[in-house]
């Protein structure tokens, strides 16, 4: 736990990505495999189930120290984070320094994960006893682990870079091995860092290559003829994996959704073994996409009845071929992969390649986007390899207005009128230096069923209450649309969004994947 706390501090105190990579590389080099596996679990944004509320911890501090509750509250008002407040209250510099130091994996597996089986009284007794073994930052981390709220300000890309550095392997190889599901077991690191690339998991998808929003005029990209233009479909980005006779469908959120879309996986059975296709799951009828909400019906239902299947038919609109005959073809030029794709997967519609003689022509096509129910155009360099993660330069999304941002729900409060009692007024934040900075408030643009579901979730995952306002765990990502963005001295973020509204609930995204304040700042330079 001490080493992990030291790593947390090193990561916390720098904004330099190189320094963060170096800190993690140092840690992974030195840490025991069992500890490194858990560290990786937390660094990649995975969480333990919340065992108790931080309020409960605050009560136990009150019980353990006799400190009046109002004093705990005063302290909290000054610190702003209750888990940190609890840690600071416990980390009295006049107490004896703890000597015992249990490794991270034992803290997690032998202690934290066993707490759930204890009665509340025994939980309290154990936690108070363990607090005495912890120092400074360790107390903070332990509290965050107990409350399921530990967040380390590093991206998956940085973790990947650190592991690649330790292993001496390409980042793409590590990124690939980190995909899908894995358990934080001692042999995890060995498998990740192994120079021998063969591995046993046949279901594993490749890291998605993500396009960047086009923030320059399109003609700054050079010859239009060097680019492959496609519609930007508004569905669920997914990878279809067919290996060893089995079909797996992965969403971009690295969730297996194979069972949700039988019409896709059924057709995929005819694919040759050793095929991986990148594409978009779309609710689709009569040659055009249905609203995203229709697709959500498919994800939300426990049972896929015939009625549901008929009401929200889906297609898998293919984009790209990543593996052919068991060979990774991501390094081939896009146009070559595209040709292979059409040959290998004729049973699926391939996303139409739009004629692209001039930018003016493409600009006009983009103008048709709203009418067609798509979000704009994708521009992909014809010679581009299939990269991992969001890399600028080769793939751009040229969306139509409005502006859009993926933000994390941070606070909620009940609405009034018809929706009084339900939490329908939301506050959203984007990432800035590892913290969520508030950028917009928006009243619900969600349907009644979603509002009800979100309301239940909010009540169960409140971290703090300020009168009617609830702070919630930063989990849910929403796509917000807005008309303009301006500098603002009155807002903490330094930016103000005009007419922000919720476009949709991005259940396919994790909080860590939400946008950053920097990406919003870039929009300031865009006309509109």
């Amino acid at each position, binding site marked *: 736990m001490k080493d992990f706390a030291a790593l947390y501090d090193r990561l916390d105190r720098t904004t330099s990505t190189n320094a963060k990579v170096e800190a993690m590389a140092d840690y992974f080099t030195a840490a025991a495999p069992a500890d490194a596996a858990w560290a990786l679990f937390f660094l990649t944004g995975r969480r333990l189930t919340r065992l108790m509320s931080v309020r409960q911890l605050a009560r136990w501090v009150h019980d353990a120290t006799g400190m009046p509750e109002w004093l705990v509250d005063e302290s909290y008002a000054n610190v702003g984070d209750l888990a940190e407040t609890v840690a600071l*209250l416990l980390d009295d510099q006049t107490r004896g320094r703890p000597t015992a130091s249990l490794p991270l994996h034992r803290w997690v597996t032998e202690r934290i994960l066993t707490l759930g089986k204890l009665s509340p009284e025994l939980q309290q007794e154990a936690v108070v006893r363990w607090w005495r073994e912890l120092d400074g930052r360790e107390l903070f981390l332990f509290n965050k682990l107990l409350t399921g709220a530990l967040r380390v300000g590093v991206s998956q890309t940085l973790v990947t870079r650190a592991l690649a550095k330790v292993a001496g392997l390409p980042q793409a190889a590590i990124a690939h091995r980190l995909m899908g599901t894995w358990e934080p077991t001692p042999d995890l690191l060995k498998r990740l860092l192994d120079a021998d690339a063969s591995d046993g998991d046949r279901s594993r998808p490749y890291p998605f290559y993500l396009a960047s929003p086009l923030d320059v005029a399109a003609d700054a990209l050079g010859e239009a003829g060097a680019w492959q233009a496609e519609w930007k479909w508004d569905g669920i980005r997914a990878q279809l994996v067919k290996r060893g006779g089995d079909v797996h469908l992965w969403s971009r959120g690295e969730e297996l959704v194979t069972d949700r879309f039988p019409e896709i996986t059924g057709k995929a059975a005819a694919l040759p073994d050793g095929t991986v296709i990148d594409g978009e799951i779309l609710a689709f009828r009569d040659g055009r996409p249905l609203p995203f909400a229709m697709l959500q019906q498919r994800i939300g239902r426990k049972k896929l009845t015939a009625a549901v299947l008929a009401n929200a038919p889906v297609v898998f609109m293919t984009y790209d071929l990543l593996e052919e005959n068991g060979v990774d073809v991501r390094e081939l030029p896009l146009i070559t992969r595209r040709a292979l794709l059409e040959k290998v997967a004729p049973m699926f519609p391939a996303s139409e390649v739009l004629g692209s003689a001039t930018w003016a022509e493409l600009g006009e096509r983009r103008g048709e986007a709203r009418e067609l129910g798509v979000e704009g155009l994708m521009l992909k360099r014809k010679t581009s390899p299939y990269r991992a993660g969001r890399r600028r330069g080769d793939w751009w999304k040229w969306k139509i207005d409005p502006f859009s941002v993926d933000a994390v729900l941070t606070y909620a409060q009940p609405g009034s009128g018809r929706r009084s009692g339900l939490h329908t007024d939301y506050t959203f934040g984007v990432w800035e230096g590892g913290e969520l900075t508030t950028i917009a408030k928006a009243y619900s643009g969600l349907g009644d069923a979603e509002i009800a579901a979100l309301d239940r979730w909010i009540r169960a995952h409140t971290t703090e209450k300020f009168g009617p306002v609830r702070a919630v765990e930063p989990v849910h990502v929403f796509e917000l649309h807005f008309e303009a963005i301006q500098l603002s001295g009155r807002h903490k973020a330094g930016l103000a969004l005009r007419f922000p509204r919720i476009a949709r609930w991005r259940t396919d995204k994790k909080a860590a994947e939400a946008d950053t304040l920097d990406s919003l700042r870039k929009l300031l330079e865009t006309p509109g």
Partner: protein
Amino acid sequence: MSYALLTLTSSGLYCPRGDFYIDPWRPVPRALITHAHGDHARWGMGSYTTAQAGVGLLRRRVGETADITGVAPGEELRFGELTVSFHPAGHVLGSSQIRVSDGREVWVCSGDYKRGEDPTCAPFEVVPCDVFITEATFALPIYSWAPGEVTAREILAWWDEGVRRDHACVLFCYALGKAQRILGELARLTDRPVYVHGAIAPSVEVYRETGVHLLPTLKVAETTKGTSFAGQLILAPSSAYGSTWLRRFGDYETAFASGWMRVRGNRRRRGYDRGFVLSDHADWHGLLTTIADTGARKVLATHGFKETLARVCRESGLEAEVLATEFNGETDEGEET
């Protein structure tokens, strides 16, 4: 007892029976000064009385021509029927508590103080009293300090890291008191010279003239253009943070030494690479212990979390109120006080 020995007026804390003020904020004929920080020692008083060890610093603050009298620790002064004496407060060089007694009742005004050891000033002396006027800058239980030596080792480790990685280490701190304490603490661990900002250099000289042992210092302003600061420690006031003055240091890391750095958000909000928890004010334990040690039946709290401290005192059975003074304590905006 008909009226208080000390009472709050628009000019400051006043002693009607002795006709003097303690740390007044408006010009008055006679001022007793606990210490030379700007919120306690101001221009324009008819006369100043302060601890002998603090005369040099006070003169720098209020001017060469000011009428300043220095008194030894514990030396008894008479103001009419009252006895007044200065006792070390352990805050900065020459900082004092001021004891006022009419023979029946004793009041002590603490000024700013700390209980932790500090190589650059005399340690806090417990002065038994009936009424204790205490600062409350850090009066929350989250504020708990490790000994200065422990923090000094952390600073040295950070500096050593700068040496290894060949970058400058710019440590922001209050120009008077904190800077010298850092130089004094580090002098026990190393003998490497430290660069100082122009706002810090003069008070460093005053400390040295008073006989306090500090690390050797070099003035940033006296370096020639192109001097490399790689691996060097530079002390600067926080007002220099974010200024073009920093450009000369090339590759550097920043840190801030303050009690406020105990809270993660305080450091992150201001963007320092490191925060070192080092304060010249009493922490929570220091405040409560001191109040108990004085045996005071009544506590008057000033600066910072004064309401919190007063409430805790009341809940433990003491009489306690807040005093609305114009002292700042150690503000988290980094103003020198």
